[in-house]
């Protein structure tokens, strides 16, 4: 099994990595929650990878994908003749995961009758296959995941409270991608490289700065999985425009499109700058020269050297703030990305008065 790394630089993601690090060797039951596509299985795989159980199997079962009777026989196995069609003995996932990990995906969709049996197995550490009167000892590390609010489902009597508390010993909640936009550039880079190596002949281009801004501002209802699919499509289509056209519209998700560098990263407060200024020469010039003065004064003030300095400072300031924001204000990372020394970056941050956002 190749484990997908858990990619990102956001605070919430780094905290999850730290938590994985602290609990992987305890093998206590884990409940992973989060919207669809956020990477719950990736977290489960990373827990397994860091645990002392890697010599044994990581076994996954999706509790929502199978009808009740089939799910039961998949989990516990069956004896020959246990039911019509059981022509020979078959072992279940619990046996396959012995001394390893059993990943119960979509646990919130497990039928109530199977929840009781699951609870019994977790309490006693024993199970019996269908049609068998023999109990088998089991040593599995159970990691469960759901996109449901289990506490809500307990209130609706659709999930057993006792099973919930037994699974919820360690709780890892993965926030949706729209709440950790700073992870998007790293994810784009990761999947771009992955698909480039898988399809080396495809010509899909990387997103330019504007496209990246759009990617960062999109609400990603399908989270990381949706982003991953977009990058994969780009390798084939090589047209970001087409990809954006095919995405569910941003307005449908209640998020108004905005010009992000200004709303998020503008530390100097140059809010009078309209995004369309590039089309309007006078407006562009007015950002660097005071056009309201008389012509004589104006011509005295204009010098290419002066304007070059002002313009480059403006752009540098924006770019530095943008990169710092993307890497969670990790200055040494930002310096590496910008290809300047750490000292230079600090000097420029002081010169341009770029301060971390106060939280």
């Amino acid at each position: 099994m190749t484990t997908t790394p858990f990619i990102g630089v956001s605070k919430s993601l780094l905290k999850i990595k730290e938590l994985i690090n602290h609990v992987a060797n305890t093998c206590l039951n884990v409940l992973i929650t989060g919207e669809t596509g956020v990477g719950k299985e990736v977290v489960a795989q990373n827990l397994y990878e860091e645990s002392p159980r890697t010599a044994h199997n990581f076994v996954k079962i999706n509790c929502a994908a199978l009808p009740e009777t089939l799910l039961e026989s998949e989990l516990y196995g069956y004896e020959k003749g246990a039911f019509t069609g059981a022509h020979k003995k078959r072992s279940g996932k619990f046996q396959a995961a012995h001394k390893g990990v059993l990943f119960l995906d979509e646990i919130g969709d497990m039928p109530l009758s199977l929840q009781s049996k699951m609870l019994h197995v977790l309490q006693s550490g024993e199970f019996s296959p269908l049609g068998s009167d023999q109990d088998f000892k089991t040593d599995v590390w159970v990691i469960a995941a759901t996109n449901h609010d289990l506490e809500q489902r307990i209130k609706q009597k659709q999930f057993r409270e006792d099973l919930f508390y037994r699974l919820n010993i360690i709780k890892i909640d993965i926030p949706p991608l729209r709440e950790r936009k700073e992870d998007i550039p790293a994810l784009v880079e990761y999947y771009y490289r992955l698909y480039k190596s898988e399809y080396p002949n495809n010509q899909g281009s990387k997103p330019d700065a504007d496209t990246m801004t759009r990617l960062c501002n999109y609400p990603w209802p399908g989270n990381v999985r949706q982003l991953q699919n977009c990058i994969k499509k780009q390798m084939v289509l090589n047209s970001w425009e087409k990809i954006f056209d095919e995405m569910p519209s941003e307005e449908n998700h209640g998020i108004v499109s905005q010009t992000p560098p200004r709303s998020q990263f503008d530390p100097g407060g140059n809010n009078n700058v309209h995004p369309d200024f590039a089309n309007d020469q006078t407006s562009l010039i007015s950002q660097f020269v005071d056009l309201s003065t008389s012509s004589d004064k104006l011509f005295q003030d204009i010098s290419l050297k002066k304007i070059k300095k002002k313009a480059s400072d403006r752009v540098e300031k924006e770019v530095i703030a943008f990169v710092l924001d993307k890497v969670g204000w990790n200055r040494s990372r930002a310096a590496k990305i910008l290809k300047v020394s750490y000292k230079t970056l600090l000097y420029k941050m002081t010169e341009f008065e770029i301060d971390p956002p106060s939280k």
Partner: protein
Amino acid sequence: MADPVRLLIVDDNKDILSTFYEFFNSMGYEVKTAVDGFAALKLLREKNHDFDCLITDLVMPNISGVGLISIVKKEYPDLKIIAMTGYGDQPGALASEARADVVLFKPVDLFKIEEKITGLLDNGNQKKQE
């Protein structure tokens, strides 16, 4: 003079945490606090703190009280543990299963907890002397 008894108090409710802190501090205990099991575990592991007693809530994010108790009993077997819960029987039963020394149900009387601490530590000392 004997060293003060060192307590680690864990609860995700900050009001409870500060009430406990004030109370036990005024009673002469050396008190540290943590907002969930994960913060408590980091405190125990990173600083290698030598606590006498852990008082923990059970239903908390990240690492629950039951998770914390299970880990602590394995890594720091001498540490006495008092579990408190306001969520009915389930978490309390799991805490006993994880071998918490005492399980109390909220609302808890601070003087009663103090009594339990003294009892647990006295017992521990007697056993050591035997």
